């Protein structure tokens, strides 16, 4: 099994308070869905809105997310899957894809 970070992107500022109730429910059910499909969610976190973020670039501290964009990171999962096709099968069902999207990135296992 390979571990992937599933980074969730939703429209800025990705405030969890703005999550439609159905989407929130689907997030709660997602771990079970992953198991049913033969994967495993090792960890999952939601983030406070990007308006609460602080960026440090070099020695400069600024208000806001690291990259200003229409969609910002809203949270992440660590998913264990057999291979990329398996991870994609599960990630495609991630409720974040409804209004935004996800980035699937293998963890570095040094």
């Amino acid at each position, binding site marked *: 099994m*390979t571990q992937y970070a599933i980074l969730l992107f939703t429209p800025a500022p990705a405030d969890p308070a703005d999550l439609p109730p159905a989407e929130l429910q689907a997030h709660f059910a997602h771990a079970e869905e992953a198991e049913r499909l033969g994967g495993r969610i090792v960890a999952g976190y939601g983030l406070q809105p990007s308006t609460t973020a602080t960026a440090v670039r070099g020695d400069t501290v600024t208000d806001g997310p690291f990259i200003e964009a229409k969609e910002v990171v809203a949270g992440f999962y660590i998913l264990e899957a*057999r*291979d*990329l*096709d*398996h991870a*994609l099968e599960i990630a495609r069902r991630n409720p974040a894809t409804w209004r935004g999207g996800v980035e*699937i*990135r*293998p963890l570095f296992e040094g």
Partner: protein
Amino acid sequence: MSGDVEDAYRAHWAYVLAATVRVTRDLDLAEECAQEAFAQALVVWPRDGLPQQPAAWLVTVAKRRAVDVLRREQTLRAKLPLLALPADDSDKSDISEKPDHRPDGSPDDRLRLVFTCCHPALARDAQVALTLRLVCGVATPDVARAFLVSEATMAARVTRAKKKIAAARIPFRVPRASELPERLDAVLSVVHLLYTSGHTAASGPELLRADLTGRAVHLARMLHRLMPDEPEAAGLLALVLLLDARKETRTGPDGRLLRLDEQDRTRWDRALIEEGRDLVLRALRYRGARPAGRYLLQAAIAALHAEAPSFAETDWRQIVELYDGLRAAWPSPVVDLNRAVALSMADGPEAALREVERLEGDPRLAGYHYLPAVKADLLDRLGRAAAADEAFRAALALTANEAEREYLHGRLSRHRPDA
């Protein structure tokens, strides 16, 4: 390379590599071992004679070499990410002796290789580069030249893609039935792109470009042989064969692209046309209830053109119907425009002009010189000389191609004898 080995390289490279990947689970090492097997053939075959089954001989040598390297470098390689082989069929690792058959009915390893190279998680240019390099066995400098990029750029592209396959664990497998249509489309698009890159080469290193069309035909043949029940794979093969049949007449002596009605049909390759048409007819039958896909429909259109005794005697009515299907399978304003041209032959220029005028509002066609050129031709046929001239000038303003400009210029009314 000696003739036998060269032939074997063209015919069996993908087969040898794909079989070796199974053992190494590492594309680079598999490539190395496959190359060594061919190098060894250069020494052994002239001395001992051509083996009865060259492909099996090469696979055996490459696999043996792989096992040696793996044993020797066990600790070194333990840290490398391995190519993901699906667990469900890893027990069927014995490859059959004949390239086209696997007695257990599991998919041919060459298909795994193609689907891995054309995985949607890879960028299109990486898919194309990997397919040429791994499936066709084209050396990186040649791939670079064919796509007019530097060798360093192409090498980096290939390396990056291979790294992603390993790190993200893009599996070495044929997609399941539920994923197949989407994934197959990616594979066919890569082969089609290879063909058109070679076909439309108006400049640049002509020979290498021509080689691309040959590679694409070879790939299309392989895909059809390995997936004989896929109508779209048959459609793509038919399409490239039918285009190939007309390739000698596509340009005039001055290098200008000739329109279909200007081409010398007696120089079209009848054998290729027949093969393409048979493929289309068979695929249309066995597709059953499934609607025909974009490649099969394009091939059917190409077949009707190829069979027609002349431009005027083409079955335009049926071509319009096929374009209707193509519009549904693969919506695109360019398809709409081509349909309008066919419509002008079936129903006359009036009906087609209405279609073209509707398309003028489509922002995706803004700047596409073929649109005003078609409109001009229709207006000209309707005897509306002034409006035609205006459209010819609009087309002239949009094209930089000298030969094309000369043609459009020649059609302005003051150059016509009847004007």
